[in-house]
């Protein structure tokens, strides 16, 4: 992995802009976004809808192409990074294939990469265990609850051992109890694996609880208004959300959101 001096820099964006051509004129989804994400960071992107947080994630994933500016992923262009399968992507919905069992869904990327059956089975079993779904491999997606389905989709993104995990509001559709539980698990997973995680959310507590870096964004045009380095300890029980430091950081995020967003 040692490519050059900036080994630890996973994502590096400068003056990144993206404009969509809509029927009623151009939409500035991203404007002059500067961003640096280091190896092992857990970065949350937070902002109201339309602030370009999902678009930014999709640019990193090479699912959208910037209009101007530059971005590198693992020191490569996003396209090269995608071709090298440098990241796992978790969508807003589980997006499991209905005709595949959970283990075959998790094995899908491995199948596409042409891994041997033995290695595939071993990795599927390992990642299912990692997300607490061991024993559910033979079930079809509809037989699982929404939270379990989303965990299966996280397992799928982890299955091929990419160092970067891109998550687009993965828990947005789940109820709060399930969400708390998955947040805890995700945090443990991050500590266990040391992966770099980019996490899009519109929940302030979720962003503060999970991340060591919070990117606050605002809409029209989509831009970064604040980047907050969180100094919360690595060990984070759920009740850390009641602590003074947590609330201070949450307050700063809230202020950032309010400043960037006009409600007129």
């Amino acid at each position, binding site marked *: 992995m040692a490519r050059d001096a900036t080994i630890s820099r996973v994502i590096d964006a400068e003056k990144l802009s993206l404009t969509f051509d809509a029927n009623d004129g151009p939409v500035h989804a991203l404007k002059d976004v500067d961003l640096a994400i280091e190896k092992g960071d857990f970065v949350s992107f937070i902002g109201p809808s339309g602030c370009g947080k999902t678009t930014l994630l999709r640019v990193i994933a090479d*699912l959208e192409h910037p209009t101007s500016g530059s971005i590198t992923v693992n020191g490569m262009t996003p396209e090269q990074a995608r071709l090298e399968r440098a990241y796992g992507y978790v*969508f*807003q919905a589980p*997006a499991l294939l*209905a*005709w595949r069992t959970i283990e075959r869904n998790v094995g*899908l*990327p491995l199948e596409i990469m042409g891994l041997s059956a033995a290695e595939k089975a071993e990795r599927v079993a390992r990642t299912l265990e990692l997300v607490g779904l061991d024993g559910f491999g033979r079930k*079809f997606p509809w037989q699982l609850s929404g939270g379990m389905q989303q965990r299966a989709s996280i397992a799928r993104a982890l299955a091929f051992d990419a160092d970067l995990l891109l998550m687009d509001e993965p828990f947005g559709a789940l109820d709060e109890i399930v969400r708390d539980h998955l947040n805890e698990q995700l945090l443990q997973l991050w500590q266990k694996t040391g992966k770099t995680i980019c996490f899009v959310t519109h929940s302030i507590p979720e962003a503060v609880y999970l991340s060591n870096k919070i990117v606050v964004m605002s809409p029209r045009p989509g831009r970064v208004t604040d980047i907050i380095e969180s100094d919360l300890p690595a060990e984070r029980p759920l009740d850390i959300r009641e602590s003074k430091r947590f609330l201070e950081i949450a307050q700063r995020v809230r202020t950032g959101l309010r400043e960037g967003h006009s409600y007129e």
Partner: protein
Amino acid sequence: MTGALSRVFPIATVVAAIMVVWYGFTVYLNSPWQIDRYEKAGIEWQMGDLVRDTMAHDRPILPAPHQIVVEIWETTVEKKITSKRSLIFHGSVTLSSTLLGFAMGTILGIGLAVSIVENRAMDKSLMPWIITSQTIPILAIAPMIIVVLNAVGLSGLVPKAMISTYLSFFPVVVGMVKGLRSPDPMHIDLMRTYNSSRLQMFLKLRLPASVPFLFASMKVAIAISLVGAIVGELPTGAVAGLGARLLAGSYYGQTIQIWSALISAACMAALLVGVVGVISHVTLKRMGLRA
């Protein structure tokens, strides 16, 4: 038992209602001729005589259901299969061209759908022609197909099956194109993040996603394949097949024969659609989709 009963009961009610109306019309439609005969022969008649006699004509305007049942019984169970009057013989002729035409139509339909989905030029150029093909009345084009294929030396089963193919490929193309395009953008993005090839995208995503659509189309396709086979039998000189029975019946005013061929065709269509339905159900269930 209540489950079976609750399923049978609505169907039985409808059948009973149809029977009542049918018998009513049998008496009503056949009575002018019957009354005329009574008067010419100077026979005194009662209502009971009229009802009985209108249901016993050799060539009624509308045969009674039991006459059709008797005719079907006589021409299936009581006739040798090799007989030219056996409905089983005629039915099997129609069935074989239906199945051949359906198989060819399904393969052609899937092939066209794949090329339309995978190739932009095909998408632009092919679809209008496919739709146009179905605006031509099949009754007009069927004799042409028979004549043209006969001129190039094809006769018998294949030309008739071609007419079934002509009708049945259409729902398969339409359903299959929709099915192959049914994966949502998220799934397509997902496959892109894995750097999957076009072939992998097709085999692992588009094709399995299209299966429920394919079966829905095949149910329509097999029913109209039967229609195509019957229509294809009309211009061949009424040699064999249910279509031939219909045509021969109308030449000689054999209404009971026409109706028995019609009812047999309807039963065959129901059976064929049912078989496709069962295969569909089993397949989708095995794929883990709730059919």
